[in-house]
């Protein structure tokens, strides 16, 4: 018999944690700067892809606090995307409140309200049990959204109307809004939340999370409040997911149950590993690569699942460190060569 919270973590085949290296911040700022310059030369189509990327990157920054830093693999994190998405839908099309700032606040509040009890129940478990419990909660959400047609619109979903940004209304077509003001608004959010996350992972709090990932039992003897820290990480990651979901819903114009189906949670894990869960920049790289790859593959073939699945398999087998792992390896080789 042993208390569940001191379940020993096994040696993970995780790439060397470069999580707190300063290079992570620089890489993040370079990507943000590139995104800020993008509207000056990229096509409108490319820009419409970037807003979902910002949304997913925000959600993944949160996801990676839980997965990469705390060592908890959630297989139901799309739940928070749906919380943000349905918050936006209820606010805009049911209550007629269009202020995006208020939508964000409500999304954050709703995420916290859900994350605290769900997290409280889930974080007592680790490893596959945590994954399964979060998956079950995600699917519970899915079936609620799917089946209770009267409230949620069922599989039709709910419409998400164009919001006001800082109280301002924007004329023109949907694309102009998404690639213009909303593009910069979402990028601004990504920047702010990225910097905030940078502070979080480099705080004593973030250090304690990493100690839990490495060895929860040892950490507890060094005074780390394992359960409380895990819950805090879960709630923070949920809030990031909720914000990401609200942005995503506005770009799609719809909140539907598909956003919380378990395969969507699987895609989030895919993105995290694609970018490299051991690196701060991993979530941003992973979501960008995923969005671009999926768009490219879908435009070429109807069998995009096959290609995405094959990429995922190759990645897991040959490059478990993800793209940032590959880049880090190349960088080291380059430095050694010169």
């Amino acid at each position: 018999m042993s208390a569940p919270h001191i379940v020993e973590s096994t040696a993970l085949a995780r790439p060397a944690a470069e999580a707190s290296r300063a290079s992570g911040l620089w890489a993040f700022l370079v990507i943000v700067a590139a995104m800020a310059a993008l509207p000056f030369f990229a096509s409108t189509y490319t820009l419409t892809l970037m807003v979902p990327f910002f949304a997913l990157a925000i959600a993944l920054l949160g996801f990676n606090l839980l997965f990469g830093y705390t060592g908890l693999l959630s297989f139901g994190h799309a739940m928070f995307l749906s919380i943000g998405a349905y918050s936006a839908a209820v606010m805009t099309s049911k209550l007629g409140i269009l202020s995006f700032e208020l939508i964000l606040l409500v999304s954050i509040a709703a995420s916290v309200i859900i994350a605290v009890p769900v997290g409280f129940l889930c974080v007592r478990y680790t490893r596959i049990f945590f994954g399964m419990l979060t998956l079950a909660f995600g699917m519970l959400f899915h079936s609620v959204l799917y089946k209770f047609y009267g409230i949620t619109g069922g599989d039709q979903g709910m419409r998400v109307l164009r919001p006001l940004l800082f109280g301002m209304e924007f004329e023109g077509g949907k694309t102009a809004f998404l690639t213009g003001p909303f593009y910069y608004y979402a990028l601004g959010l990504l920047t702010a939340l990225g910097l905030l996350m940078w502070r979080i992972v480099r705080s004593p709090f973030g250090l304690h999370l990493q100690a839990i990932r490495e060895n929860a039992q040892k950490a507890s003897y060094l005074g780390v409040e394992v359960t409380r820290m895990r819950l805090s990480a879960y709630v923070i990651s949920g809030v990031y997911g909720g914000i990401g979901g609200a942005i995503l819903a506005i770009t799609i114009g719809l909140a539907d149950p598909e956003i919380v189906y378990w395969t969507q949670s699987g895609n989030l894990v895919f993105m995290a590993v694609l970018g490299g869960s051991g690196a701060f920049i991993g979530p941003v790289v992973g979501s960008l690569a995923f969005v671009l790859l999926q768009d490219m593959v879908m435009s070429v073939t109807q069998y995009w699942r096959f290609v995405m699945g094959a990429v995922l398999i190759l990645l897991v087998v040959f490059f478990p460190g993800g793209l940032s792992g590959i880049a880090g390896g190349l960088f080291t080789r380059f430095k050694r060569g010169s």
Partner: protein
Amino acid sequence: MTTLLEARTVCKSYGDFHALTDVSLSVADGEFISIVGPNGAGKSTLVNVLTGLLRPTSGRVAFRGTDIGGIGPVELARRGMARGFQLVNVFPELTVRETLGVAASSRLKRTGNPLRSLVRDREIADAVEEVAEIFNLRHRLDQPARALSQGEKKLLDVASAFALKPELILIDEPTSGVSTGDKHSIMELLIDACRKAGVRGIIQVEHDMDLVARYSDRIVALQAGRVLADEKPEVFFKDPALIAAVVGTRPPQLRPKAANLNTSSETASQRSAAC
């Protein structure tokens, strides 16, 4: 002499199995206690009870007069008692600096605000460097723990417990897996560190009778969940029956070691007196 830790008539049973029966022991200020006994004697259960991980079925464990039965590791650390591990138990991917920082930031209560900077925290940095200095780990501060040698990992494990600035530390076979040549230097370092860091008492669980003889002030021998003996080393090692009960198969070897016991136990008591 004040008592740091006291276990009084502690019993721990799992169903019909009595892991510990009426175990009493105490650790006074400045003392180095060794817990010895053959495998299955109940040492690890006793350690878990003494460190508040398990609540005794009956009896009481008190640290500085207050009950610590089943309080759990975090509260234990907060009250001033630390525990090192038998198996090397460091955080493989964290650097030495980060590992020591984990303990320092919980001692200094820095984790309430997730936006607080770690690198700019002078107090944590000072605490980390102080402990690293004591354990000769300064030159390794920015190495990940997995890159350390076995002996260094052992040191880091104990050092991280020291970074909590405990009054009492419990170490489980601090030199297991370390070469015979290194084990004395590690023990010397430990006792030296104990003095520098203001630790008031040490409990070690140890199989190696050489180390037990050389450093302990008192030896508590367990057998089948009961205290078989609680003696000073000079008394303990004069009783062949006792040694045989504790060590099992190799009592003859102990004669020569017992011979040089006087000098070594003197140094041990000098050291712990300075503690």
